[in-house]
């Protein structure tokens, strides 16, 4: 019915650093490559490109230079790039269906490299769905791509290096940061210094961000977390409390802060939708962000010729992702007989070493962003956890108490995770809540992966047709 899919030796989903370098490396060895991304340009979340229509009046940052370098490599590689295409279907073998401004396309490939990054996790608190409360990732997008401040005054809260990056970005853009609220303590950051020293360049960048915050006299409240946000006239009033080492709030330490935006994020979870749909084996790794496909250092999964790389295979950061991309390209070509074993071995050495080193730094950062069970335990009963379907913690736990034993059953009984985001936002926290009562994350499981990978318009999928074009199968028995 649909036109024959266009065939490529390698198809890469995701145009962040991992995907870009996978495409570039595969092209270098002569493979035909297609790379798809739903964004208008390559770079991913970390090196998000400024829209082409923007005129700039400011100096180009080191980060932009890094993004421009990768975009240049991709452009010169000769890979077929499809930006603005949402991949909504992958099927074994492999076929990839995507929808762009000009309608649907289909690709076929013997080797599929998935570099779809992460989604942001928010541990719910009363008021987290209030307008004006946004994710750290959303704030990053506004700052990096749209050159917009998220608010005139912003509270930046949550965990991990994004806190400092977002706060420094706001200060640099001329905004006011009311406070940075970090669930981690200074000791936790210090404990990671040895691992961070694997990448002195990145440590230096972090130090520059911190210096900028100090210069702007931004209060840094470490071992604190948001416990509520409510609207107060035009502003948001946030309640902040001290937390213990596990992330549990300490009663009696609450104070309030006022801002017109709250940017909050409690770490990142690997986007494992594609590998779930393709039924690869997954494991739970709290320190790497959650459930992720079981992979070897080249990104090989339990499904032959399916590779998962970059932060989507476990949070390790942008620097590691580039090398991971190169490794996956080598493996994909070697596994499909396009690259001799000797070349594969020789060429793998350097990226493996770089990847190991960069992943140590990224892993240390990921540890800071890992989900803290005590923070989940502190979610009040009546707080909405699934924001698409308005399902509260109490409703989720009531389902478990009535006999639902894992997340998919909880979903069926409560509609939690059935909305437009299909659990991409709430899934990790829901599973943690269920895990508390059924004996762990493995027992609680994860939402079964199904298509579409993104909500997709029925009009776009069906296109133009007449009734006779519909190949209605044989009638059901009477």
């Amino acid at each position, binding site marked *: 019915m649909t036109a024959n899919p266009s065939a490529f030796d390698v198809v890469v989903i995701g145009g962040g650093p991992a995907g870009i370098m996978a495409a570039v490396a595969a092209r270098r060895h002569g493979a035909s490559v297609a790379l798809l991304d739903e964004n208008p340009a390559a770079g991913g979340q970390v090196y998000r490109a400024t829209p082409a229509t923007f005129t700039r009046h400011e100096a180009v940052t080191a980060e932009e230079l890094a993004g421009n370098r990768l975009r240049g490599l991709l452009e010169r590689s000769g890979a077929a790039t499809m930006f603005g295409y949402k991949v909504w279907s992958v*099927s074994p073998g492999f076929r990839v269906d995507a929808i762009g401004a000009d309608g649907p396309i289909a690709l076929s490939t013997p080797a599929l490299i998935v570099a779809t990054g992460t989604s942001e996790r928010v541990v719910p608190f009363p008021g987290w769905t209030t307008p004006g409360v946004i994710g750290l990732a959303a704030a990053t997008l506004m700052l990096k791509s749209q050159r917009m401040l998220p608010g005139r005054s912003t509270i930046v809260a949550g965990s991990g290096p994004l806190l400092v990056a977002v706060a420094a970005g706001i200060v640099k853009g001329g905004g006011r940061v009311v406070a940075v609220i970090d669930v981690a303590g200074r000791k936790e950051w210090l404990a990671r210094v040895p691992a961070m020293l694997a990448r002195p360049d990145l440590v230096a960048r972090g130090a520059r961000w911190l210096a900028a915050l100090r210069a702007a006299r931004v209060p840094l409240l470490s071992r604190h977390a948001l416990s509520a946000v409510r609207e107060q006239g035009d502003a948001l009033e946030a309640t902040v409390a001290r937390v213990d080492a596990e992330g549990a709030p300490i009663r009696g330490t609450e104070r309030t802060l006022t801002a017109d935006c709250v940017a909050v994020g409690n770490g990142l979870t690997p986007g494992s939708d594609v590998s779930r749909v393709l039924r690869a084996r997954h494991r739970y790794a709290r320190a790497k962000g959650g459930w992720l496909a079981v992979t070897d250092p080249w990104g090989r999964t339990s499904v032959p010729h399916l590779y998962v790389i970059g932060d989507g295979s476990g949070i390790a950061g942008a620097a590691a992702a580039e090398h991971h991309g190169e490794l996956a390209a080598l493996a994909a070509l070697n596994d499909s007989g396009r690259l001799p074993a000797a070349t594969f071995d020789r060429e793998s050495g350097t990226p493996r070493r770089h990847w190991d080193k960069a992943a140590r730094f990224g892993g240390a950062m990921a540890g800071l962003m890992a989900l803290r069970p005590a923070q989940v335990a502190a979610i009040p009963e009546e707080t909405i956890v699934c924001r698409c379907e308005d399902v509260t913690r109490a409703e989720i736990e009531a389902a478990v108490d*009535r006999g639902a034993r894992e997340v998919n059953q909880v979903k069926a009984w409560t509609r939690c995770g059935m*909305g437009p985001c299909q659990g991409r936002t709430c899934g990790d926290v829901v599973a943690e809540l269920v895990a508390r009562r059924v004996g762990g994350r493995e027992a609680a499981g994860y939402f079964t992966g*199904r*298509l579409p990978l993104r909500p997709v318009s029925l009009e776009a999928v069906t296109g133009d047709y007449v009734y006779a*074009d519909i190949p209605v199968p*044989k*009638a*059901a028995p009477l």
Partner: protein
Amino acid sequence: MSERYDVAVIGAGIMGASAALFLARGGMKVLLLDRGPLCREASGVNAGTLTLHMTRAALIPYAQAGWRMWTSAAQWLGSGVDAVATAGLSLAFTDAEVEMLEARAAVRRRHGADIRIVDPRRAVELEPGLNPQLLKAAWCETDGYASAYLTGRAFRGALVQAAVTIAEGQRVAGVESGDGGFTIRAPSGGTWSASRVVLAGGVWLGEMLAWLGVSIAVKCLINQLIVTERMRPVMRTVLSVASGLLSLKQFGNGTVLIGGGWQGLGDTERGGVETVPDNLIGNLRLARWTVPALSEARITRIWLGLEAETADALPLLGPVPGVRDAWVIGSAHSGYTSGPYLGQLLAEHMLGREPSLPLFDPARLVGVPLPH
């Protein structure tokens, strides 16, 4: 596991759960086993269509009884599956389909379904969302829909109250009949014992009957289902087409469920694992053709559910041929509507009560190959 049950029901879908419930209410001590959670296979993931338009003709009186049970679930089950009674229309867009529609409606009418053929003007009055290009419609007032995903939740409460022992996540490796009862073996080597056994395993019934040395072929269909985001009201009836290859309804929450038995890939071991893009597009085109406003919908989820079909597409419902005190229930094509009633009916037979309708003797299918 040393306890002895009056009856062990293996398979906790609607058929098994309903049989277990009515057997327990009839005074039996019941064990209900399933390799997974309660009602999470076909019973929990089907389209929830409560229709006669897609029911096998011979099953219509049973589906009518099931329809009454679903729409009054609060009374006998305690909590329900959000069943909504509304009219159902089956549509024809071509001359060939008109012929099929009229012929099929006539047969179903003979089996007791009040189905009338109406012209496009009347059809559009009943369902303003319809594509006016239809040629004829078959109209039945006994129709409706349920949220199938609530089935397990609804049955669990009633089963617990009836003191049924529910054993979820328990695989069964085999069943042996011995003197005065059955030994049910777990893969771990553990056993359960019961005086009677009911096999209620849907698409797995072929394998389960083989435990008792009975050979009946059961086909496994891999049905694809699609649900949209919440959207404005675009329809109020349950819609299908003459061939049965579409089911369409909009729930109270605004989501639209699209089904009809277009096939994906999978098997009884792995379940439904792969969506076939061309079948998906075909199914969606038929849905959008039928209700044009669906073009503005966004799809949030596509899933695959297993459906069992016997050689004559009628249920297995009755004694296991040649094995005393063993019974089988299930593999009813489009069996969601009739499901609770079939379970109740089997319980009536097993409890020695006057059954309200006859069974579908499984002996008819022993050794009968599946068509093509």
